[in-house]
């Protein structure tokens, strides 16, 4: 097997030897002839095709559904490293949840000058309608997907916290299913922590956070409909949890309660896992022109008659300028140092940092503070002078809207290209559930940039995915069981 990687590779060390945790896998892999690997890859693709695992790409006329691109070779994470990541994620989500609660209530962190008040007031994602609100169990961010990358220095960094409607978890579950079918021979005998528990955990999280007076709550998944890029995931999660998948038109609000229209009349809904952005949730409260949402939903929510997951307004905590303060936020609320590192971030609304950014654009990545999906990003080192000049103007015109970060070199994982293995860059999105306890799904979604040298992993832009294996530790208690408890509304350090 010939495999040469540049930079940090997840499976092989710089000397070309398999990393300790990957040794059993590599040994197994070497026993498989190249042609067989290709067959397996095709079997996996056929499987995905038959299972109808697709995503929608906006602006593609010929068939909006695309088969999910999948690479056969897994990304492997050893149990010790994962324990640290898991602790770090729990810590981070715990703190961010307290932060959101504080922002919409007492605002201690602003008064104490830890996070600048202007930054929050100017955040597009701040929802004044949520001021003074306390959701059930004190939980705002029920479902988060935190993007992690490993830089050339071997350190894992948090790239962004997605606290609104992160998607991708259905692909984690389906990737594992496909892997077990197509690559069983290699899977057998490996010690991999199962991921199949997720739907149960998600359902429990939703039920735990139901309005407290309801004894047998009814949960639903709210989708914008079949044209949404993540529609497959919406149907998948509803099916896995056994709850109704509803559209805005299926719901009505009456006298402060939410109901769904059924053949047996209306039935009360207590928890809504909404996969619709804040803006479109309720035309009475946010965008008037929204036909995806439900009129009166926010009023019902504020009265405590229905739970929304995630709560409206959590976007303030994944604003990319606020991101820069997460280490201080963790310190402030939990009195602990952040376990997971932040990428150094320059906030353009700060004058001196802005000057630095403008003079070092050729070394930096510039990102809009309030976009996701990889849109509106300038890769400084690869951009033309004209593109950089354009961004200088954009930044000057609206500095609050931009941050900049050094260009990070994403780690690679061997990926099947025709019938050879080549390094391809990956990131990792673990999913974190926050109910009475915090649960981290072992592993997460490994996205891979399928084009040589590319660092863009988004599926809309030529990205694919891999199964992610968290290895079991030898001891009887595999993955750490420390559960951070989220306290109801307490926000003091």
């Amino acid at each position, binding site marked *: 097997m010939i495999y040469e990687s540049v930079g940090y590779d997840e499976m092989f060390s710089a000397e070309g030897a398999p990393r300790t945790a990957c040794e059993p896998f590599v040994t197994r892999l070497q026993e498989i002839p190249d042609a067989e690997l290709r067959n397996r890859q095709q079997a996996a693709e056929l499987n995905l095709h038959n299972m109808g695992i697709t995503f929608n790409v906006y602006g593609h006329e010929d068939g909006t559904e695309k088969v999910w691109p999948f690479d056969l070779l897994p990304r492997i994470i050893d149990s010790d490293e994962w324990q640290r990541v898991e602790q770090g994620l729990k810590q981070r989500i715990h703190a961010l949840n307290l932060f959101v609660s504080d922002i919409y209530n007492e605002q201690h962190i602003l008064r104490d000058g830890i996070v600048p008040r202007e930054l929050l007031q100017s955040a597009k994602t701040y929802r004044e309608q949520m001021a003074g609100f306390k959701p059930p169990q004190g939980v705002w961010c029920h479902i988060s997907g935190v993007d992690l990358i490993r830089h050339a220095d071997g350190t894992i960094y948090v790239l962004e916290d997605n606290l609104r409607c992160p998607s991708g978890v259905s692909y984690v579950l389906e990737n594992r299913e496909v892997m*077990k*079918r197509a690559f*069983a*021979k290699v*899977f*057998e*005998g*490996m*010690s*991999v*922590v*199962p991921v*199949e*528990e997720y*739907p*149960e955990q998600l*359902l*429990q999280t939703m*039920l735990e956070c139901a309005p407290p007076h309801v004894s047998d709550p009814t949960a639903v998944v709210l989708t914008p409909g079949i044209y949404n890029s993540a529609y497959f995931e919406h149907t998948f999660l509803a*099916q*896995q*949890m*056994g*709850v109704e998948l509803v559209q805005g038109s299926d719901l009505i609000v009456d006298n402060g309660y939410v109901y769904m229209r059924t053949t047996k009349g209306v039935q009360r809904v207590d928890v809504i896992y909404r996969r619709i952005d804040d803006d479109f949730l309720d035309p009475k409260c946010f965008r008037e022109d929204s036909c995806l949402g439900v009129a009166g939903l926010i009023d019902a929510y504020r009265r405590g008659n229905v739970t929304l997951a995630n709560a409206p307004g959590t976007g303030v905590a994944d604003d990319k300028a606020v991101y820069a303060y997460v280490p201080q936020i963790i310190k402030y609320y939990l009195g602990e140092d952040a376990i997971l590192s932040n990428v150094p971030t320059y906030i353009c609304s700060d004058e001196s940092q802005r000057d630095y950014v403008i003079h070092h654009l050729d070394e930096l990545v510039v990102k809009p503070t309030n976009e996701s999906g990889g849109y509106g990003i300038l890769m400084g080192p690869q951009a033309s002078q004209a593109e950089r000049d354009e961004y200088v103007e954009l930044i000057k015109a609206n500095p609050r809207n931009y941050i900049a970060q050094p260009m990070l070199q994403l780690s690679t994982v061997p990926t099947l290209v025709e019938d050879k293995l080549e390094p391809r860059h990956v990131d990792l999105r673990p999913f974190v559930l926050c109910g009475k306890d915090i649960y981290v799904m072992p592993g997460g979604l490994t996205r891979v940039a399928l084009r040589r040298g590319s660092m863009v992993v988004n599926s809309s832009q030529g990205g694919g995915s891999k199964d992610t*294996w968290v290895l*079991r530790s030898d001891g009887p208690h595999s993955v750490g069981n420390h559960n951070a408890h989220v306290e109801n509304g307490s926000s003091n350090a």
Partner: protein
Amino acid sequence: MLSRVAEAVYWLARYIERAENVARFIDVNYNLTLGEGSTLGHQWAPLVYTTGDESLFQELYGEPTRETVLQFLAYDKRNPNSILSCVANARENARSVRETITVPMWQQINTFYLMVTAAARQGQPLTEPNEFCDAVKQASHTILGQTYATMSHGEAWHFARMGRLMERADKTSRIVDVQYYLLLPSAKDVGSSLDVVRWSALLRSASALTMYRRVHGPITPNNVARFLVLDRDFPRAVHFCIVRAQDSLCHITGSAQGTFKCRCEQLMGRQRMELDYTSIEDIIRQGMHEYIDQFQLHLNELGIAIHNDFFRLPTNTTEASQSQTQSSS
């Protein structure tokens, strides 16, 4: 209709259903063992208990290993309940009643048989059974569909349906029995943390996970047992099977509901009533294993009564016709 024909149709359906269930057990167990870190025999031994053939297995192979269990359950002709044996028996029965079943049914059964024998003839151990098990399930369902859609829903059809449902009730109850026993102690050991992955697998072995979720939501041992044993609407639940089997029996005999003319109607009616008015709490109080043991006994008695009431030749033949194997218990 001729007793011989009725018997053949009844057993044809039972054998197809049996093959499908063995494939389900293998498939789910295999999926569970992937990523478990070892391929020890102890993960495979319970499967032999589920099909009820542990003594034969012991005699032929000794200690269970992954390879031997798979061989025994899928391809071994010496095991009357292997997938190969079941499909071969189903085909033999079908051959004897080709004038009664339809051409599409026969063709599908024959194709199924050829597929399984070809797989077995390759002589290779069944290392990755997923694909094979999928094909077996698919073939079984195609036969079910052909039977439903191309055969008149008359007496022969009701014998086929009754056979199929009795077999399914038997297999669902067995897997609940074995898995409940295996999973429950571990739930106590670890305290509150339920092995959701394994309980889900039990549901998946009956393709029941999606429907279970819609009825009960979160997974609890009692609700899983309640669903697989007592649910009225789920087609692999024991209760569903017995209700429909009784319906077919009534069509065959022409008796009104709640009345009986022969022994098998009596036993079927009692069993159905028993399931109609049993709650999961009753079962737990009695003990899951004890309850299912009792159920299996009744089911065997019922099978014998069906044999005596419909299939047995007149008494002047010295030996009663050779009865086909119920799964031994």
